[in-house]
């Protein structure tokens, strides 16, 4: 299924969880937040939050700034 991750359409396993998705992007998932369709998904729900396709996902971390 297709999910937009950080602005790019990606083909991911149907029914993938947020957790899987993050793991694919980065091996060190510290300091990361995930937004699905504009709502922050708490880390405690990453495993249980399954994607159904066509979501817009933002995977955000801290960078130098300010």
């Amino acid at each position, binding site marked *: 299924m297709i999910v937009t991750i950080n602005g790019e359409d990606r083909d991911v396993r149907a029914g993938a969880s947020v957790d899987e998705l993050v793991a694919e992007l980065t091996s060190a998932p510290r300091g990361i937040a995930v937004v699905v369709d504009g709502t922050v998904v708490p880390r405690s729900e990453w495993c249980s939050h399954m994607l159904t396709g066509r979501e817009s996902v933002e995977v955000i971390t*801290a960078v*130098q700034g*300010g």
Partner: protein
Amino acid sequence: MDDPFVVAGQTLASRLIIGTGGAASLDVVDRILTASHASLCTVAMRRVDTGTTGSIFDVIDRHGVRVLPNTAGCRTAAEAVTTAQIAREALETDWIKLEVIADERTLLPDPVELLEAAARLVALGFQVFPYTNDDPVLARRLQQTGCVAVMPLGAPIGTGLGIANRHNIELIVGEAQVPVILDAGIGTASDAALAMELGCDAVLLASAVTRAQDPERMAAAMAAAVHAGRLARLAGRIPRRHHAQASSPTDRMAAL
């Protein structure tokens, strides 16, 4: 320490807050944190970049500094609120440097969106550090909203113009119920010292250090300047006089 800096219930060892943006590399950030002795530094929230190596977290951990995420780049209250929530989730802190800018050219805060965002974030339990202009009325309103500090600019972000309007900073300080942190506009050490002499409780700066020719040395300069300005504020400066006043005795002169 007989002059603690307490903000949002926390005592910080340093009155210099470092913005990490603009530094050429994480290694430079590392050396700036060492030289500045900062105990608080800002970060921005951005999309994960799978191509980068190293992480700002490694640097922050090494120094044991507290992190203050910002909402840089947000143009509306809604964006800022979501960004703050992202930051809280990612960094496990309810401290947020609230920036809601009106345009990219001036990077000045939009007062209406800023107030709106501050009110919503306070209601959501955040400790809000708003980046604001130097309007004493807006500073007052932000305090009434429940912000834990106010962070007026000296001049627009990155300009290095120093403190354009000392009178406004003095007015803000004069009635503040929360710490006043001079944020933005600092160009060099004397600007930072001046901010403290005007009564600010702390200084937040990024470009002045990160974009200096020698960031590490400028970080040390700023640490010393903030300390100097604070001491001078506490020490009580001499009044300005129109006429001179001798500093050597005017009596017991030899007859030559």
